[in-house]
């Protein structure tokens, strides 16, 4: 089922959580709402679910205006960050809850409920925990039960609010893969909120990047990562070195140094971003590139991370370079050594602070 939100506006006092937002979620996709905390992603999810009322705008479910439909009737499955399992009920009763609350006329029989609950518990691979209480489960298990509970009422859409946010890194990784597989099986339109860019890129079909209540970019994980539309997106998706300068013939002039960059359409004051693995270190004090000084060399498994401080015109700035551990420089750089930095790939944006446009 498709979801559309049109001109949704929501403010909490002076704080604008959603700024006239319009978005389309096509049927059957798994979409990630990604952004820093306070960007409005959870509010948007809650507005779609009907747990929060927008100040203005409409929510369309399958083309029908659902803005005035109560949560109860929207048929959305909602999964909370902290599971919100009913502590006084067994796992079985938790999953059966939605079915048992149905009006007498359409409520399935107890044997039918039993069959359905076990089917769902098998789907989340926790059938053996049916008689346990939530307090006896691990975090990952609880979240899978919460998902089974939401699926029990056969929702038309599945909304997940930071579903893995309360879990430790290892379990989170497992559950991500598991959620992706589950979605491939069920094909239910799903939206999940996350502030973890790795999670969004790994799991989602499509990523919606939000900031300050607005959408910065929508696209497939590869698109948003490789062609970030705004400086915010570039900076948010993965580590980035940031250079401020002025567009010039050979690239970008940063003080007396020049950052060699390919063709770009920007003029005047610009911001250039370079990923840490796309920055080369040249062992010379003078010459081409950005002047810097090695401050620390860290070996992290297969990668060596070099932390550098800017010299001369970029003094006080901090840069990161990532090299494969096998790189000849990885073992030989010493702290305090003056070097030059040359990018292999640069993304250039007009500087919003000096250009005036946001």
């Amino acid at each position, binding site marked *: 089922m498709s979801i559309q939100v049109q001109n949704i506006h929501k403010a909490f006092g002076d704080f604008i959580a959603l700024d006239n937002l319009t978005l389309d979620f096509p049927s059957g996709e798994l979409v990630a709402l990604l952004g820093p905390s306070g960007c409005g992603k959870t509010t948007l999810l809650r507005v779609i679910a009907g747990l929060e009322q927008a100040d203005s705008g409409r929510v369309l479910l399958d083309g029908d205006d659902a803005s005035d439909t*109560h949560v109860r009737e*929207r048929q959305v499955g909602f999964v909370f960050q902290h599971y919100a399992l009913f502590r006084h009920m067994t796992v079985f009763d938790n999953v059966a809850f939605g079915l048992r609350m149905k009006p007498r006329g359409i409520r399935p029989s107890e044997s039918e409920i039993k069959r359905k609950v076990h089917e769902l518990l098998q789907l989340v691979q926790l059938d053996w925990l049916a008689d346990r209480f939530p307090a006896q489960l691990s975090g990952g298990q609880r979240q899978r039960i919460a998902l089974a509970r939401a699926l029990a009422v056969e929702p038309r859409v599945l909304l997940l609010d930071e579903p893995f946010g309360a879990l430790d890194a290892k379990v989170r990784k497992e559950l991500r893969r598991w959620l992706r597989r589950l979605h491939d099986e069920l094909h239910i339109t799903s939206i999940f909120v996350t502030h973890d860019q790795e999670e969004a890129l790994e799991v989602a079909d499509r990523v919606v990047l939000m900031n300050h209540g607005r959408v910065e970019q929508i696209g497939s994980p590869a698109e948003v990562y490789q062609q970030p539309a705004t400086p915010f997106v570039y900076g948010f998706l993965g580590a980035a070195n940031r250079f401020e300068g002025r567009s010039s013939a050979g690239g970008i002039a940063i003080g007396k140094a020049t950052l060699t960059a390919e063709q770009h359409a920007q003029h005047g004051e610009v911001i250039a971003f370079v990923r840490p693995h796309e920055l080369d270190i040249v062992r010379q004090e003078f010459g081409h590139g950005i002047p810097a000084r090695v401050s620390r060399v860290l070996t992290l498994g297969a990668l060596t991370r070099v932390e550098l401080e800017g010299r001369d015109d970029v003094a006080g700035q901090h840069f990161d370079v990532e090299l494969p551990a096998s790189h000849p420089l990885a073992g030989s750089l010493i702290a305090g050594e003056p070097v030059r930095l040359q990018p292999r790939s640069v993304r250039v944006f007009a500087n919003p602070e000096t250009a005036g446009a946001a």
Partner: protein
Amino acid sequence: MTKAPTLPRVLPGFGLSLGFTLTYLSLVVLIPLAAVFIRASSLSLEAFWDAVTAPRVLASYRLSFGMALLAAAINTVFGLLLAWSLVRYRFPGKKLVDALVDLPFALPTAVAGIALTALYAGNGWLGQYLEPLGIKVAFGPLGVLVALVFIGLPFVVRTVQPVLEDLETELEEAATSLGAHRWQTFRHVILPVLQPALMTGFALAFARAVGEYGSVIFIAGNIPMVSEITPLMIISKLEQYDYAGATAIASVMLVASFLLLLAINGLQAWQARRNGRSE
């Protein structure tokens, strides 16, 4: 919990603290209670039985325990409502209302009794409207109930309030998103969580109401067979220097109260087991 005496404890001094607890409990609670039974045992079995089953005394048991149970039940319902309003809503004067709840704790019970009597007597502010309707509050069993409801109110509010504050609204949102109506959410999600606190509040309000003397004695009217509470029967025996008779009735009250509280605790433990909270 299983005992593991070989394991070193985080905080030492288990023996000392247990010893102190038992000594303290003995001095403050057990020895005075034992004295009641010893005093009562000075009566012959026949005299004891006569003292505790006199018709006036039997009527007073019915009134004391019946009204205490009823008052505790009323307080459980309205105490829950009050606690709910105080936790869930913001309204002007909330702090004041919150403070007012504790007033029955702090107020000397005699003051409460006089105030309630003045209010509900035939010529009182409320009594003058109720009496023509045939509702006689002051100087009758209904007056006893009013007084007991008054003094028992804070117990339920104060036991339920913290539990309500800890109750995540997410649970209600989850229930609603699963299609539950408001009443279903309350009945199946909120009430089971509150139940232990409600029962504790009920037990406390009941215990307090059974032993209440000061506030009841003014408003009850103390009509023999109709509105005499058991503590009054004890006092009247004492006034006639019938110490043994007084302690006989006291011992019956003691045993009955203890059994009732034990039953409530047992019910609570059973509920907890059923809800899987025993682990």
